[in-house]
């Protein structure tokens, strides 16, 4: 399964909430593999890839966070200049809209790993795999 589970959390822009959230995950031995925060003047949306999404979902809900789940793909990108541009061009050529992207923490086999949230995920998977890109499987993460 290369359509990975991402957890999104609604956060008000006030101090302490992000550290509280990461502490909750830590207490339950949940590791964060990748994260990004999109924020506006008032609020932020935290997106997380973790080793145990079901458990993370449960503990965050218990602590009163608003949580939702989305499917994303994580693409291994050659660590060379223009590596990311290559993927973006392919998706663009096939008219696949990208909602957002962000990078994994650390590298994999010397390559960068980038998370893509796209509108037509099945199509994106098919095209990128055809072009020889490695999409991370659930088993490599969870």
């Amino acid at each position, binding site marked *: 399964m290369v359509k990975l589970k*991402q957890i*999104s959390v*609604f*956060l*008000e822009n006030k101090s302490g*909430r992000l550290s509280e959230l990461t502490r909750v995950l830590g207490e339950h031995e949940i590791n964060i593999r990748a994260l990004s925060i*999109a*924020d*506006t003047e*008032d*609020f932020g*949306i935290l*997106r997380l890839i973790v080793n145990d999404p079901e458990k993370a979902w449960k503990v965050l809900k218990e602590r*009163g*966070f*608003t*949580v*939702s789940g*989305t499917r994303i793909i994580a693409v291994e990108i050659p660590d060379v200049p223009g590596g990311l541009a290559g993927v973006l061009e392919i998706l663009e050529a096939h008219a696949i809209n990208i*909602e*957002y992207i962000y990078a994994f923490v650390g590298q994999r086999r010397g390559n960068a790993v980038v998370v893509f*949230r796209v509108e037509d995920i099945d199509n994106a998977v098919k095209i990128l795999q055809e072009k020889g890109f490695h999409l991370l499987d659930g088993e490599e993460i969870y």
Partner: protein
Amino acid sequence: MLLIWNLEYESMSRPRLTELQLKRLREIVAKVYAKVPYYRRKMEEAGIKPEDIRSLDDLVHLPFTTKEDLRENYPFGLFAVPMEEVVRIHASSGTTGKMTVVGYTRNDIKVWAQVMARTLACAGGTANDRIQVAYGYGLFTGGLGVHYGAEMMGATVIPISGGNTRRQIQIMKDFATTILACTPSYALYLAEGAAEEGIDPRELPLRAGIFGAEPWSVNMRREIEEKLGITAIDIYGLSEVIGPGVASECLEQNGLHVFEDHFLVEVVDPGTGKQLPPGEKGELVFTTLTKEAFPVIRYRTRDISILYPEPCACGRTMTRMHRILGRTDDMLIIRGVNVFPTQIESALLEIGETEPHYMLVVDRQKKLDELEVWVEVSEELFSDEVRKMENLESRIRQKIESSLGIGVRVKLVEPKTIPRSEGKAKRVVDRRDIYG
């Protein structure tokens, strides 16, 4: 064949009704002027005498009566008959301060039973019905009010009073209750209790409910009707006026008929006290036209509603009032505009939020009132994309602005951010420094 209990009065033509109301108004004003020193003094202060009432339009010259007036005259100061003629006392305990005490003569009890029989008939009730009265009996007017009306109608009364959910359900089933009388929240509680007992209330003979004594939403009505498999009728009353039986919905479920031959109704601007024309939202004000022991003149209910004078498909001509939209106590005046928290709630329900948690924060910036509406983001509303969340924020803002007619700022907040006290959220924070 549906019955109108007092056909002659309930479907009276407007000119005849106006004539009757004026005659009764003149009598009641003359009576309180003669018998109740407090009313006399207030009328003298306002410079009005009973003979100045020449048409219903002159009503606006009479001073209002408020809850504070009633407390000031605790317990019997506003009674208009000697105690030997008073056959019953009821009282309501306010959340603040003293109780409000009301009295009834023998005739008042008869009138009350009449208007309650009308209410039951509005819900399709007849002598064949079995009416389970799950309103409290006692100083509260709910239980005994419905009881006397049901007996007058000739229905079978089951005076179980409030509480003891298991027994309520047992009796509802074994006695084949057809009409339930209680608060809307208790009706829902009974539905859940029945489910726990393994009883499906929809399979019982119960077919209607008359629910009142607390404000409820359209959604709550739908839920009660669905879970109990009945028609839920909204009824309105308050002990200061008579108790339940002041107004009732008919089976059209499109506003509550006010029994105007006994209770003269107005809607006024809660801020200025100015009488408002039909169709405009404001505070309900009642004048009792036939009460003997405890008449009230222009009593300010603090309940917000709208009047619709058009005749109803059911055949009744009595004016209809909108289901209670809120309380003036919750009202805010922002840049001269009356704002009720329920308006915010309706807007959020329209957006698709099923159980909105929100708070109004009013502040004064550069001498201008600013209203900020905090809305808790539930899972239904939450989206992972900033664009969609910003879109949600602006949709909420537009809905509220079109409902209130003033600009607001919407702030999305995390769940449980808004303080809840005993289940009820604190809806308004007013940070305006009026001395600043």
